[in-house]
């Protein structure tokens, strides 16, 4: 892990930018950006494992992040006993029957003799029959569950465990989904894989939006428990009050800073662990083989490497990291909003981070996550300031001016695109390029 001068400098500049925001705007803003930078960095590490190590184009980042968010709800939210007694067991049975039907369909596809076509239709028939059976079992349960205090709950709730556990669970959810998705789609050509994963991630979001019995769908789950103290409690704590008095902070501001710092501490620990593991993996024989496969798939498979199996491993691992980051994000937000998962923000932006940072380089991914998130947030005030400056010659009540100022925020999308294209053209290996073997 030889940090050369250039990399240190790059991270130092990044740190200085965050500090500058702390001074110019406020410490709270800077810390809020920092926390999302950390989460973005972890997500980027996950995508880098897939793209940088193995050359897999996963355009379904959004779906895995949302599954992580779901885990946060399932793990941490207290159970809703009324909903459980209204239809819990029946809903579980329904899900189980659905899973059973899918398993049976796969078995039909694999074991039943006959041509591809007959097996295909047989498997489809089994799957459809299974889905009808599942709907038959689950529909009344869903109705009953969603009827339990719909304005407040209307879902099964979770396990009521500390939310930090959900980070692991989120990784597991995503890994499980990735295993299934990878199993069926990893044989596809790169652009088809991208389209398929994008499609599957949209299906996941649809599912989360509409299956209200699971996590309230578009009604969102509010007030997830926190792994860190609440501001209100801090404000009543003596040492916080003393600290505020000593440094002349307002109590509200200081409590909020402490909360954000606690999150940052937790996130940094996770980031360091994930980074360390990723580096270990990259430098291991496994990582070397991954890159050999990426650089020449034909040669690698000719040498007897099971390319599909390796791709599946890397796809599952990378997705697990994305799921972990997704759970962390929902933890930070304290709210799970399925409708907020948009491909632009959750898939393509992460891709910009990976490529700008430097595909194949973990340190680069972290830097990419930081830089891009920073500018994603700060492009708004910067763009606004720029447009205000450029239009300062115009009349104050000019319609064009107010239109431009009103829409200035959207320039950040265009900025991201321009940055991506410029990096691809003039520094295609990113800010911190992959070390050559």
């Amino acid at each position, binding site marked *: 892990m030889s940090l050369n001068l250039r990399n240190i400098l790059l991270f130092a500049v990044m740190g200085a930018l965050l500090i500058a925001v702390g001074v110019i705007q406020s410490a709270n803003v800077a810390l809020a950006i920092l926390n999302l930078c950390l989460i973005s960095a972890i997500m980027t590490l996950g995508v880098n494992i897939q793209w940088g190590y193995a050359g897999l184009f996963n355009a379904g980042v959004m779906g895995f992040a949302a599954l992580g968010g779901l885990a946060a709800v399932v793990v941490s939210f207290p159970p809703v006993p009324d909903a459980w007694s209204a239809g819990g067991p029946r809903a579980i049975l329904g899900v189980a029957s659905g899973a059973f039907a899918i398993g049976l369909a796969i078995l039909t596809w694999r074991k039943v003799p006959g041509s591809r076509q007959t097996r295909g239709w047989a498997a489809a028939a089994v799957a459809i029959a299974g889905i009808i059976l599942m709907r038959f079992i689950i529909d009344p349960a869903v109705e009953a569950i969603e009827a339990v205090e719909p304005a407040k709950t209307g879902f099964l709730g979770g396990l009521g465990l500390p939310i930090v556990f959900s980070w692991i669970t989120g990784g597991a959810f995503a890994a499980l989904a990735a295993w299934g998705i990878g199993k069926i789609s990893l044989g596809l050509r790169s*652009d088809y894989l991208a389209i398929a994963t994008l499609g599957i991630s949209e299906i996941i979001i649809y599912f989360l939006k509409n299956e209200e019995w699971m996590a309230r769908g578009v009604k969102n789950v509010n007030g997830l428990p926190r792994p860190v103290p609440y501001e209100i409690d801090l404000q009543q704590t003596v040492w916080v009050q003393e600290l505020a008095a000593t440094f002349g902070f307002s109590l509200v501001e200081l409590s909020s800073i402490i909360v954000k710092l606690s999150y940052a501490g937790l996130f940094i620990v996770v980031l360091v662990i994930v980074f360390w593991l990723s580096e270990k993996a990259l430098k291991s024989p496994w990582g070397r083989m991954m890159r050999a496969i990426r650089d020449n798939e034909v040669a690698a498979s000719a040498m007897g490497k099971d390319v599909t199996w390796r791709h599946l491993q890397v796809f599952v691992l990378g997705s697990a990291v994305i799921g972990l980051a997704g759970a962390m994000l929902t933890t930070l937000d304290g709210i799970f909003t399925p409708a907020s998962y948009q491909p632009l923000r959750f898939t393509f932006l992460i891709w910009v981070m990976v490529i700008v940072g430097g595909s194949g380089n973990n340190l680069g991914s972290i830097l990419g996550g930081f830089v891009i998130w920073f500018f994603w947030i700060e492009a708004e005030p910067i763009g606004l300031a720029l447009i205000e400056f450029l239009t300062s010659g115009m009349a104050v009540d000019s319609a064009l001016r107010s239109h431009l100022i009103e829409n200035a925020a959207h320039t950040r999308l265009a900025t991201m695109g321009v940055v991506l294209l410029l990096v691809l053209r003039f520094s295609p290996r990113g800010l911190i390029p992959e070390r050559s073997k």
Partner: protein
Amino acid sequence: MTDILNALALLGNFVIVPGLTYGSQLALGALGVTMIYAVLRFSNFAHGETMSFGAMITILVTWWLQGKGVSLAPLPTALLALPIGIIGTVLMCLLFDRFVYRYYRRQRAAPVTYLILSVGILFILSGLVRFVIGPQDRIFADGERFIMKARAFKEMTGLDQGLAIKTTQGVTVVTAVIVVALIFWFLNRTRTGKSMRAYSDNEDLALLSGISPAKVVSITWIITGALAAVAGTLYGLDKGYKPFTYLGLVLPIFAAAIVGGVGNPLGAISGGFVISFSELLLTFAYKRVIAYLTPGDWVPEGLVQLLATDYKLAVSFVILVIVLLVKPTGLFSGKTL
């Protein structure tokens, strides 16, 4: 007999007319994606935003025309503005090709590089569009709202069920037919069109025959830009223009292109209709149709709906994924213009 006609009117109103309209919009979009794939050999993720850009230009010109008091009544004024929208979109496509894609073509970059580039362009266009016209809903259809109102249909036929056809629906289908006919005439009857097919079929042999790649690529972008502007405008006319929705259109469009076989224009068109009708047929509540078709006064208990309406858009994603997994070459074999 009346019952059967009523059932048909019901299906016509809720499935056939909207299906034809949405199918035409998807078909035009898929045709653009397929053209790019056939000639430049990559999946253009920015196509939805290209459509949005075309629609935006058309809307701006429409407003200007409306401000001048120009109108095409009973047809929407947007049709007058559309040629400018097409020119703007084509210029935009050619600019991006010149300053972004061309460099990589010379390097003979991998297809996935173009895909990432198209993501960059997606960002730029979506930012640009929101910056210029704003993220709000824009309804810019004017002129007569209906070709046929539900009540007029009832009075005309004496049926209980109405069949309404909006002007925008009629305009969409007619325009789509004209555009598709033009494209096929171009590809199959003109020397330039044939050279495009030849280039798509066998790049090296096309070179040996003296076909200029630069020209083929430019023409491809011109056609794609024009198609995108038309598709984007028609979609916006019919459903209201909202920049946000166009990114969501990319997947149904890819689904249509892939279902038909990427690179195959005929496939793209049929794919568009396969997707639109699957969405509608799977989420349509057959309750009243069945009530009409069964003897007596029996009415089914539930809605008799295969899938909840919420899942309408998901249908196209599921079809997309299934086709990719089962027969990635599509229902018609791909990679030929």
